[in-house]
């Protein structure tokens, strides 16, 4: 009988503590000595700020990519048009009545010397001999 009574007091104490906590919670009181909720809130804010900054960065990248895509299209169009014009002009040069006239040796030497000098300064530029006709 005595044991039952002591259990009654324990259960009553637990119920009373629960009611007190519920009442305190209802009044806006929080038991958070380590500020865990505040830390969670701060972490969530940081994640949100990072996500927003990333969104702005990726959106700016997409806008930049669109500008570059337009520029690439312009370059391709230019290459096509210039290639067409050049191929036509080269064909006319090949068909000219004096097309097969050899260049004078001293002129060839001057041109070769100058090209050699240019290639010495910028080796990566030189297509090499026999590559003069891009139209084939």
């Amino acid at each position, binding site marked *: 009988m005595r044991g039952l009574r002591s259990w009654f007091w324990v259960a009553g104490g637990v119920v009373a503590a629960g009611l007190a906590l519920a009442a305190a919670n209802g009044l806006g009181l929080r038991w958070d000595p380590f500020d865990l909720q505040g830390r969670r809130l701060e972490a969530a804010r940081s994640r949100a700020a990072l996500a*927003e900054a990333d969104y702005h*960065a990726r959106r700016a990248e997409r806008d930049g990519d669109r500008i*570059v895509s337009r520029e690439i299209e312009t370059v391709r169009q230019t290459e096509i048009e210039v290639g067409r014009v050049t191929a036509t002009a080269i064909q006319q040069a090949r068909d000219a009545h004096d097309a097969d006239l050899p260049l004078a040796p001293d002129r060839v030497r001057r041109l070769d010397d100058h090209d050699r000098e240019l290639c010495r300064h910028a080796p990566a530029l030189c297509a090499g*001999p026999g590559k003069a006709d891009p139209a084939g």
Partner: protein
Amino acid sequence: MRPPSVPDPVRLTLPVEATRPCRLVTLGPSPTLADLETAYMARGEALVACDAARRLAVATLMAERAAQAMAARSDRQKLP
């Protein structure tokens, strides 16, 4: 692992067209008048292509800088 505190920076990919080297067309052996004329025209064509590649590289750089500025501006505007 800690999550990053800053987003990946704004980067634009340099188009392959902008990375192509310029070329200098030269005369082959025993050139004729047509070879000279052809090389002259081919050099002009190569110059235009080279300039287009240069402009594309500059445009990409400028677009990247503008995108970085835009991202930074958007970031600043959201701050209280």
